Every structure is written in structure tokens, then in C-alpha cells.
């Protein structure tokens, strides 16, 4: 039973390319446990919910408390701190780099004494559940490469995203919903986002993230048209399967199977998706946890609630994008608004998972593609002052999934500009994410164009210090 994990491979179901597997897939009884079946190592979590504040939330104003910045507000950041770190072209030409003090007071929370700013009071209040990683750093200073790097381990589109790798490796625990689901909320306001960051690259295409729309029916046209019942649909799919089987035997093209498995998935989603999207069975006190926005489809709050419902149904990987964090301008005005949108729902998601016993085997992650500069972009005295991109250090927090609760890892300098202790590279973050799911990031590879690819390329170190 070596093989149970490898699993069910010997019950010829797991090799997605074998005709037997095709027959299985076509008959609708998919054993969806991925190419690994079981982890290389014992997993700490079975599922992931990744919350990405696209555009880059300011670590300086939220999680990385530096009293020195308030003291030195208006003075130039010392050149010895800034050194030669790459700046974006938006602030690179500035003649002065005056420090912009944090926009809100910080206070300590809980038994762990974590410092969180008053912009995020609910997240602060649950910080005993959270594991802060304050020393994350990336090589990129612009959104598109940094986001692709974060999700796919490479700055240019075309590599599989972490969610696709996980789907490929472990499949799902629910055959009626996609393995990997993506939800957006808010307006991107100029920050590029495209499906390559939840794409499948060279992996079979049914591993790509399925985007749920920011609306009350998350998947369009999932209902049968008038006059068409389930049985009709079934007959049509069976007939198509027979044709496809011939085509597959002829061409051996794996994409034939991918496409058919998507037809079958869509068939099953006709029942599963409306059930997930219908929140009428949620009691008021649960809805209140997520805040008033939860009643509006497409908000971050609603997506958090949907994420919990998908989590209960065993969906393996979810990415929730919160948009509108690129505060080059008017950070004083915009940041508090954005924070208010996500603060309560993000905290509620963690606590709601916890009371259901789901947090212990779900990894919740929260962060951005990079951080923001402690110095001002533009005129510091102008009311629409902002902060530029900063990849040198920024904060992520993890919760659940076998990470230490009420813990903080890594340190930055007094200016929240450079990592001074325990640096965590994006590849390390991804290696750790895979490790928590039981996958050895060095062993999960896919051969393409003559070489083996993996999510972390030739890098990545598991941050074992944060594991409980």
C-alpha cells in the first residue's frame, strides 16, 4: 500500500493519460487524488486559502511596527538604510526621501503581544491565532512580475501557479467542485491582474484556477436552458464521451481528457455551485461576524464567507484577491477604507473556520506581492501623499495548518526597510506552503521542453521555525 498514496495508481485511475482513466473520467466517477495521491510527508493541512491584497498593502502602516518612523516623520531616510536597493521608476527620481510616519496608532494584542495598527482592529484582536512573517522579501518592484513570481515562482507568465501544482499533486477532496478556485473583489485601479497568476502553465489545463464571478451567480450559464433537463444533459455528455474516446485513442492528446473532465465538472457544478452560493442557511450571527458587506455578492466579505463554505466542502486551494491597494497617491484617504473592507471578514474567516474545527487542517495566508516604502512618494506635505513599492521586506501572516499561533518570525530594521533577521524569500514562502500540504517542493516536478520544472525552480527553503 506504498501505493495507496501513490495510491490508487495501481487501481488504474490516477494516471490521467491511460485509456482506463479516460473511461473512468468519462463515466463520471473520478477518483481525484492527484498524481501523488498522498503527500511525500504527513501533511499539516489539507486545504489552503490565500488572501492576496493585490497592489500591495503597506506593511509600514499595518503589521510592522516601527516607532522610529513616527519619531523621524518628515526627515530623510538615512542613505545607509536605503543603500542601493532598487526603487521603482515612480520614486527613483525623487531628490528627497522623507519618512512618512505610520498612518495609525499601533497597539499590542492578546497574549502574544503582537503589534497591529488600529487600521486593522479585528485582525489585531485575533493575533493570538496568527503567525506573522515580517521578513518576506522579493526581487521585484512592479506588480505584474511580483504577482506572477509570488503565485508561480517566476516573473513571466507561463508557469503553473501554486494552486495548479497542488491540484496536480493532490487533486481534491470534493469531486463536485473545482480543485482550485479564485475570487476577486474590488476594482484593480490600474494594477494588472490576469489569469496567468492562477494559470496552469504546462500542467494539464484542468488544474487551472476556476474564477468565481463577483456576483450572486458565481459561474455563468451553469443552469440548463429551458426545456433541457439533467437527463438530456447526461445523454449529451455520454455521447460526446464516446466520440472523445475515439479521438483520444487517435491523437493521445491529454487535452482531450482535460476538456472532457471540464464538461463533467461543469455538469456536477450545476448542482454544487448554486448550493455553495446560496447563503440563506447562514444564521444572522454568522453573517454579522463577516460584517455588513457580506450581503453584497462580490465583496471581500462575501468571498470570505464563500471561501469558508468551499472549505467545508473540501476544496483544496482558494485564492482571494482584494484589489485597490496600490497607494502611490492619497494613502491617507484610501488605506483606511481598504482596510475596513477586509479587516473584519479576514478575521471572521479565521475564527469561523476555527469553531468548526477546520482551521487546524486549513492553511490561511494573508499578504501582498510586496510592501510599500516607509518614505513618502511625492510631496510629503501634500494631502495626497503616497508610498511607493518596496520589495525589500514586507509582512505575511499564516494561520491554522500546523503553524505556530501567536508567533512572529523575522525582523526588519528600525525603518521597516531591510530584513535584519531570518529573511524569507518568496520561494521559501512557497516551499513552506507545499511542505504544510505534505508536498516536498523539490520532488514535485513536471518535465517540459526537456527539463524538470518545479514551483520553486532551484530555490526555496522550508521555514521550519514557524511550524508547530
Amino acid at each position, binding site marked *: 500500500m506504498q501505493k495507496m498514496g501513490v495510491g490508487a495508481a495501481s487501481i488504474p485511475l490516477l494516471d490521467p493519460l491511460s485509456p482506463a482513466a479516460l473511461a473512468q473520467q468519462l463515466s463520471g466517477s473520478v477518483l481525484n487524488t492527484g498524481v501523488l495521491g*498522498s503527500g511525500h510527508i504527513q501533511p499539516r493541512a489539507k486545504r489552503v486559502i490565500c488572501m492576496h491584497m493585490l497592489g500591495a498593502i503597506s506593511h509600514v502602516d499595518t503589521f510592522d511596527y516601527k516607532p522610529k518612523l513616527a519619531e523621524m516623520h518628515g526627515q530623510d531616510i538615512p542613505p545607509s538604510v536605503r543603500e542601493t536597493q532598487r526603487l521603482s521608476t515612480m520614486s527613483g527620481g525623487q531628490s528627497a526621501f522623507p519618512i512618512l510616519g505610520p498612518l495609525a496608532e499601533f497597539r499590542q494584542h492578546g497574549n502574544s503581544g503582537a503589534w497591529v495598527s488600529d487600521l486593522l482592529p479585528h485582525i489585531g484582536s485575533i493575533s493570538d491565532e496568527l503567525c506573522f512573517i515580517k521578513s518576506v522579501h522579493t526581487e521585484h518592484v512592479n506588480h505584474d512580475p511580483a504577482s506572477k513570481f509570488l503565485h508561480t515562482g517566476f516573473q513571466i507568465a507561463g508557469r503553473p501557479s501554486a494552486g495548479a501544482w497542488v491540484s496536480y499533486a493532490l487533486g481534491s477532496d470534493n469531486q463536485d467542485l473545482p480543485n482550485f478556485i479564485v475570487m476577486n473583489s474590488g476594482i484593480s485601479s490600474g494594477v494588472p491582474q490576469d489569469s496567468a497568476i492562477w494559470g496552469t502553465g504546462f500542467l494539464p489545463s484542468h488544474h487551472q484556477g476556476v474564477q468565481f464571478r463577483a456576483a450572486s451567480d458565481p459561474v455563468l450559464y451553469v443552469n440548463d436552458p429551458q426545456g433541457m433537463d439533467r437527463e438530456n444533459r447526461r445523454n449529451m455528455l455520454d455521447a460526446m464521451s464516446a466520440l472523445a474516446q475515439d479521438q483520444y485513442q487517435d491523437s493521445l492528446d491529454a487535452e482531450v481528457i482535460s476538456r472532457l473532465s471540464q464538461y463533467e465538472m461543469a455538469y456536477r457544478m450545476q448542482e454544487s455551485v448554486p448550493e455553495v452560493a446560496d447563503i440563506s442557511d447562514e444564521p444572522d450571527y454568522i453573517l454579522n461576524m463577516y460584517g455588513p458587506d457580506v450581503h453584497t455578492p462580490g465583496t471581500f466579505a462575501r468571498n470570505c464567507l464563500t471561501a469558508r463554505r468551499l472549505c467545508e466542502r473540501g476544496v483544496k486551494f482558494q485564492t482571494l484577491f482584494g484589489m485597490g491597494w496600490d497607494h502611490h497617491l492619497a494613502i491617507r484617504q484610501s488605506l483606511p477604507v481598504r482596510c475596513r473592507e477586509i479587516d473584519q471578514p479576514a478575521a471572521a474567516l479565521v475564527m469561523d473556520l476555527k469553531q468548526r474545527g477546520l482551521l487546524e487542517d486549513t492553511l490561511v495566508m494573508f499578504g501582498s506581492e510586496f510592501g510599500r516604502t516607509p518614505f513618502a512618494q511625492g510631496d510629503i506635505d501634500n494631502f495626497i501623499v503616497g508610498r511607493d513599492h518596496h520589495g525589500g521586506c514586507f509582512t505575511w501572516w499564516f494561520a491554522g495548518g500546523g503553524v505556530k499561533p501567536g508567533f512572529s518570525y523575522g525582523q526588519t530594521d528600525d525603518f521597516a526597510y531591510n530584513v535584519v533577521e531570518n529573511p524569507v524569500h518568496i520561494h521559501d514562502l512557497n516551499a513552506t506552503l507545499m511542505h504544510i500540504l505534505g508536498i516536498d517542493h523539490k520532488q514535485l516536478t513536471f518535465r517540459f521542453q526537456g527539463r524538470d520544472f518545479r514551483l520553486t525552480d532551484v530555490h526555496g527553503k522550508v521555514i521550519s521555525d514557524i511550524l508547530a
Partner: protein
Amino acid sequence: MTEFIYFLGRFHVLVLHLPIGMLLLTIVLDFMSRSARHHYLMQALPLCWAATALSAVFTVVLGMMHFSEGDFAGPSASAHRNYGISVAVVSLAVWFMAAKLPALYQQMRLYSNVLLIALVTMTGHYGGNLTHGSTYLVEYAPQSIRALAGLDPRRTEVTDITLADPWHDIVHPMLMARCSSCHNNDKQSGELNMSTLESLLAGGKSGVSVISGDADNSELYLRISLPETHDDFMPAEGKTPLSDSQREIIRWWIDIGLPADTLLADLSLTSAITSVLAIELGLADSGIQQMRQSFPPVADETIAQLINQGWQVRALSRESNGMIVSLLSKGQPVTAQMLEALRIVSESLVEINLASTGMTDELLSLLAGFNTLQTLNLSNNSLSDKSLAVLYSMASLHTLNLYGNPQITDGGISGLSDMENLSTIYLWGTGVTQDGMKGLMAESAGLMIHGQSEMVLLDSSVE
């Protein structure tokens, strides 16, 4: 200045290979030049001898610098020094003959060549004793050769853990493998010699090396357990460090009073240290095999049957026979037939997820005797107090999720306090009261009880 001399001195171990190589080359050329065909090589000999002699002198100078560090004591060190100097002196003399007294050189060269090879061999031998320890060469030699070298017979391999000697079979070999290249009879870095128990106890420059019964204040344990990047970490200079389990063994050995010349059978051992010792002695299977062995393997056909019944089956990991099962299709009720199908694999089941499957008291009773279960999710079902007795006998259970079973009350959960391994329980949405949870908490030390999450909701207009 002293440090700079030490710095140069350490190049001795690198440069010393030059005169050896040149000497061998020169002797080969000298030998070949005896034939008429290669007689012309004679012309190169003065130059070759010059290179040999000068590199030997250079090596001796670096050697004296290295020697001045003071770590080297004992007969091997002085023998190495004396032989080394004589190599330099003799090769200088031969160079002089080859260059100025060719007739004499012709007469003497056979004897001088043999002499130089002998001297270099002796120098190298004693030098090797300094860096590798004098027993390095014959460590794996046949017992007869070891006897010739004046060494104790090699200890016979331990095949029964109870017959192992804590010092001679366990700790001493570890120290010999990792530490003895710098702490031996001939080289004593920090004035510490680890070749015998007596010399180890004598300590070194920093004082006593081990305090019997107190590993945490023993220099030996402290130095091997520092972060590897620390200046004082041992073994120094990037040599292979001891493994975590070796550190643990040394800690154990110091804490129980440095036992030697005794048997493990005569010591009282915890099961934890026994398994570490067994692995160190090569008498135990690795952890992976232990884990695999702790659950019986399940045949592929059996797994296929479970899948056909509607179960999703995963292994705990690819290295384990332990199994996690949940329903393939979420939201479908579980049947008695499905649960009965699990019985055949019950000894390998580690986790069952039965959330929202319509579990009833009757169905739960089908899980009686599933004693290897560690995690059981029964949330959102209609179980009552009656059925919980089935759980009491699940000796391995550490996580139990009962959330969303309103008929479970204080009376039902009070019986769970006897479950020794239970560490986490979820009780939100049950009929259990706050008092009931407090009562259970008081009865069972270390049990984490999760009720409804408390979250302070702030007025969203507050900034």
C-alpha cells in the same frame, strides 16, 4: 603578528605536498637518466633538486609557524618536525652535490634517493598521526595488524542493545568520529584530548569538559549544541557536526553520570532514549519504517473496494500505511454498509471525516473498536449522548469534532475525560453548556476545548 604567523602556518598542510611531488619527480628523472637514451635528462637534475630543496625548506618554515600554535604535543609532533627538517637538510645537500660535485653525485645518488624517500615517508606518517590521530590508519585493519600496532582489539559489533557499553560502544565512537582529528594524543586543540575517558575528564584550556550529572553546564555539551554559525561551535571549521540524536545521547550520558564499563541493561532507560540509542547503534529501523510498520498494510483490492463503496482514501503520507478516509461525494449520507466496509481496514485507519453525513447513534456504533483512530470528525450530524460511549475505547483518539450535534449534552461529554490521548475537542453547536465545558476542562489536563469563536465586533464606523 602572532595571528598572522598562525595564518601563514596553516598553509603548511597545503604546501607540504610540493616537495613530496617534486622529490618523486626528480628521483624518477634521475633513474631514467641512467639509460643512454634519456641521458640528456641529467641536465635537468640540478634544477629539479633546487626546486625540491627550496620547497622543502619553505615547507619547514611554514611548519614551524604552524607548530608555534602550540596545539601539537607528544612524540609524533617532535618526530614529524625532526624528520621534516632532515628532509630539507638532506635535499639541500643533494642539490649542492648535483650542481657542484657531479662525480660525487654519481656515486652517492642511489643512497641519497633511498634515504630521502625513507625520510619523507616517516615525516608523512607522523604528520598523518597529527591530523588524523595515530589509530586512523589501522582503525579498520585486521585484528592481527592492530595487535602488531599495539592497539586493543576492535570492539565486536553490538547486536543486542542491552549488551552495549555506554562509553566504549556509543559515546566514545561518536567522539572518535567527529572530534578526534583535533583532540587526540598528538594534537590537542584547546589542550583537550578525547582519546580516552580519563583524558576527556581531565578537560582542557576552558576547564572541565564534562560535569557529571549536569549536561547544561558541561562545556562539551554546550559547545556541540550552539548554533552552527557560532564561533565557539564544535566541531570547528565546517567539519561534520554531530547529529541531533548524537547530541541527545551525549546529553543523556552526561546527565546520568558518565557511565562507562557497564552495560545498558544495568541502567534504567526511558523508551525515548532507548529508541535513539538503538538507531545510533544501527539496531532499529528508521523512523519511517517504524511508522510504516505501526499500521498494517492494506491490499490494493481492498482500497479499490472502499472507493467503489464511495470512500475517498488517502494515505497519511507516501511513507505510511496509515489511512485517511472521507466521503467521495460531499453531502451524501453515509450508509451502514459503507461503515461496515471500513472494518476490514480498521487497524490502519488514522482519520475518518464524517462531517454532514447523517451519522446517527446506530451508525456510530459500527465504529466500535477502531482503536488506531487519531482524528474523528463527526460534525453536523444528529448524534446524541448515547452513542459517545463508543468513543471511550478509542485509545489513540486525539482530535474529536462534535460541532453541530445539538443532542450532545454535558452528561455525554463528561465521560470523555478518561480518554488519555484526547487533546482537542470541538463542541460548538452542541447542547454542552459553558459549565459542562469547564467541568470537562477541570477533569482532563491539557485538553483544548473549542466552543464558539469569540470575536469582538467593533462598530464598523470606528477608525
